[in-house]
């Protein structure tokens, strides 16, 4: 069953720890509880987006470095 995970806070979404680094997670990856999916930069401080549920990553709704608002769909998981 597909589930859409929302951004926990507003800011800029990053899929990797630093430019040029591999993405934390890619489409088709298996996600475990506690895995880091990405980072959200809020006012120059970085908060990791941590998976609270396990599943397979089936879609990203935002691109790397996109601006996101709290509650905006971030990614889909297939449990």
């Amino acid at each position, binding site marked *: 069953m597909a589930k859409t995970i929302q951004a926990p806070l*507003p800011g*800029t979404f990053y899929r990797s720890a630093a430019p040029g680094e591999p993405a934390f997670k890619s489409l088709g990856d298996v996600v475990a509880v506690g895995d880091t999916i990405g980072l959200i*930069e809020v*006012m120059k*401080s970085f908060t990791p987006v941590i998976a609270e549920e396990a599943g397979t990553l089936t879609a990203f709704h935002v691109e790397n470095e996109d601006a996101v608002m709290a509650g905006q769909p971030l990614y889909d998981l297939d449990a």
Partner: protein
Amino acid sequence: MGISTIFIANRGEIAVRIIRAARELGLRTVQAVSVADGDMLAARLADAVGPVGPAHATKSYLNKEAVVRAALETGCDAVHPGYGFLSENADFAQMVEESGLVFIGPKPETIRQMGDKARARQEAQAAGVPTVPGTDGVVADLETAKSEAARIGYPVMIKAAAGGGGRGIRVARDEAELSVEFPQASGEARAAFGDGGLYLERFIGRARHIEVQVLGDGERAVHLFERECSLQRRRQKVWEEAPAACLTREQRAALCSSAVRLAERVGYRGAGTLEYLFDDTTGEFFFIEMNTRIQVEHPVTEMVTGVDLVRAMIRIARGEPLALSQEDIVLKGHAIEARICAEDPAADFRPSPGTVSALAVPGGFGVRFDTLLYAGYTVPPFYDSLLGKLIAHDENRTAAIVRLDRALGELTIEGLPTTAPLHRALAANQAVQAGTLHTRWLEEWLSSAPLAVPASPIIATPA
């Protein structure tokens, strides 16, 4: 160099500040706006806006090409960079000038020269400005380190030549510690950075951060006395004062004249700040770096000197010689600036963007609030957390603290947590009131006790 329209290549409160100064000089302004900033106060106050790109600053306010293009397309003839963003980017300043626009700031070469810490240190030494005592480059072995440390004076910092950002630093208090630490530090540096090279520098444990404001027209420079910015958290200034109450008259004269020497030596143009560490146990001061731009804390200097620094910057940029001689600049009273940020001091200073549901701005004699806020404004999450600067000026430091506390009591920002409660606690703190501060004081104090926020003013008003 005629200037009729200034492009504001910045945002937030400093953009508002620059627009006000420009308007008082009869100049038009065009405000740079990212897609996230269309409704900010500066965009409302400017005569026009110039889009510079997406929300993320690297794609908008930090995008040199986009900023210059927007300035040209909107018919501007000058660019004010404010602070942060591209304000100390020599390539940007050069691009602005090569586009036929006036850069309101120093020459690109000066930005480049003073932005390189090693070159700035050399220039300072050549101007007879004291720098932190240290070795000339890497120390070959322990025996050399011992003799160098004896010359520099203990305690010394052992720094990895290949380190950076605070990594690879140790402190030795005497020769015995140096003998233990030096070989270990070398091994660690080799492991961490692939280079075991070490150099030594005097360690100033209880340093105060003191900086001198200068204005120059490319030939002549004046100082506008100094500020103390020792209250810092994570190297961010939190509370700033002018003048530095810990200095004697002689120390102040020596410090400020050293800054003028360096500014004149490099042919400084515009407003700039020379940062120093001050050791109040020995009375020594050491130049560390120069900021070649207007700074966040410039209002405290404006309050104690009566000089409008941003207006002066614009006048210098349009080719006018310095209107001030050193004798014109007189220190009057004491001013304190409290940085009000969208951070929650009760939750480890978590950033807190959001919508301002209600706003009451403090006023009255000797109070100034430079802000980007209005009621109903939504603070975006994409930029830094500074919401405004509350500045209190009074006859002396004690009275200025009382006035700041009074003004903080009038300040209401509803809808998001701010650091205003931290400032009330600081105003109530005995060490702050006594001025016995150093650059690590605030972090030590914050870690020693949870933030107690007084409900009402706690300082007795001086008779």
